[in-house]
């Protein structure tokens, strides 16, 4: 309890926090707007942690808990890989590894009308964007970006999809480019789609490249950037 009154939040930022820890006292921070991300919950005047992980702060006012899990909590604007589970008259039901099945309206495609509804079979892999994500409703998805263009969204053909944790997906999508993808990209040609819900899709001309890229990505999950580069270079040498 030796935290200073006005800068007390900094005592927990970038540290491991556990459920129950009180990290912010709103009564001491007047005239400020704070944005809370995942893992934090408001309890009256206190902000407490509900998931174990590292507390992060981004200027000017965003706090969130960063953690890596096998399940995904849907949030608006995320790009995810979904698998079609059911098809109805108005929507497709898509599994995105979240608490509920997500809904993809049949008209949420570029130039989509009632006449040209796409026919997705059960098990089709789609690259989608999360449009609505309220905690007590099924999340809603779309195959268009914010401006209404198809972009890269839609069904993914061929290739191989594997599942991992949300932390690995965030690492692969981080900027500057993650060392694994950079090192792999210098020697091999492949296509990759990363969903923030812990699914990754890889495609290449030959199956051996696909398997190699998938295995390499899975092995480098818990390594630091320098270790990742070394590991990938070692594996590339063994391949040749």
């Amino acid at each position, binding site marked *: *309890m030796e*935290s200073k*009154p006005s800068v*007390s*939040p900094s*005592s*927990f930022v970038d540290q*491991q*926090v*556990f*459920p*129950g*820890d*009180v*990290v*912010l*006292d709103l009564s001491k921070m007047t005239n400020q707007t704070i944005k809370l991300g995942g893992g934090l*919950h408001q309890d009256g005047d*206190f902000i*407490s942690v*509900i*998931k*174990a*992980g*590292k507390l992060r702060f981004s200027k000017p006012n965003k706090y969130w808990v*960063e*953690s*890596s*899990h*096998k*399940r995904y*909590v849907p949030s608006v604007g995320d790009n995810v890989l979904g698998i079609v589970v059911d098809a109805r008259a108005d929507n497709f039901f898509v599994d995105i590894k979240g*608490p*509920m*099945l997500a809904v993809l309206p049949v008209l949420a495609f570029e130039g989509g009308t009632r006449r040209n509804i796409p026919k997705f079979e059960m098990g089709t892999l789609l690259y989608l964007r999360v449009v609505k994500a309220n*905690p*007590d409703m099924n999340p809603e998805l779309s195959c268009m970006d914010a401006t209404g263009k198809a972009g890269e969204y839609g069904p993914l053909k061929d290739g191989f999809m594997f599942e991992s944790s949300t*932390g690995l997906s*965030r*690492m692969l*999508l*981080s*900027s500057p480019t993650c060392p694994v993808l950079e090192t792999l990209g210098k020697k091999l040609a492949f296509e990759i789609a990363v969903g923030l819900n812990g699914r990754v899709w890889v495609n290449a001309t030959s199956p051996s490249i696909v398997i190699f890229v998938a295995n390499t990505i899975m092995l480098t*999950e*818990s390594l*630091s*950037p320098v270790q990742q580069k070394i590991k990938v270079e070692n594996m590339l040498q063994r391949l040749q």
Partner: protein
Amino acid sequence: MDVEREGGRGANQLRPMDCTRSVLSRAHGSASCSNGETRVLAAVYGPKAGTKKNENPEKACIEVIWKPKTGQIGKQEKEFEMILKRTLQNICLLTAHPNTTTSIIVQVAHDDGSLLPCAIHAACAALVDAGIPLKYFAVAICCSFSESGHILLDPNKLEEQKMKALVYLAFPSSVRSVLTEGSENGEESAENGIITSLTHGVMPVDSYFQCLEQGRAAVTPLTNILKKKLQSPSPINQSAAA
């Protein structure tokens, strides 16, 4: 008040505790917890869509399945399931994922006394590993009351059989807080709480309250041990894109 215990343990001394997370690759969250020789493995699946028939759809539903080491599932297992379900319902933030079910499967690997506290720790650790929103941890302890009036903490199987009464207690974990002036009140309200109390046998009321006090004294050290063991296994790199 010196009591002779196996292995030279003091009356207030707990057996070494160990906890590992992410032991199962297919479960959404898993943990293995050991308290001396007692070992329990817990796996969490969920949250999954839909609740059971008579459950409130505005809250998340928790389902516990207890698997003993040997033998068929009987009344004792059902009792453990009910106790664990009520304890976990208290610590989970049920309004975070309404209309979902989270399944927790508890497998007893070895029972050497103090089984329920070990199972509570394993279930909590598995929930943390799965990322289920929790209000706080549950920290549990077993106190036993002997014929001669001594209170022994964390008895093993042989000691349990000789005891007159057993008390299983589960408390909310101690939390770190940035509150400075309100720290006294903040700690009191959390530490004065009790989640679960289960008693077997006959004991005087004063001894029960003494057990409560001794159990509460063990909350902070137990919380620290659990938190240390549950540190995130892999370094999560800084992700500017997230």
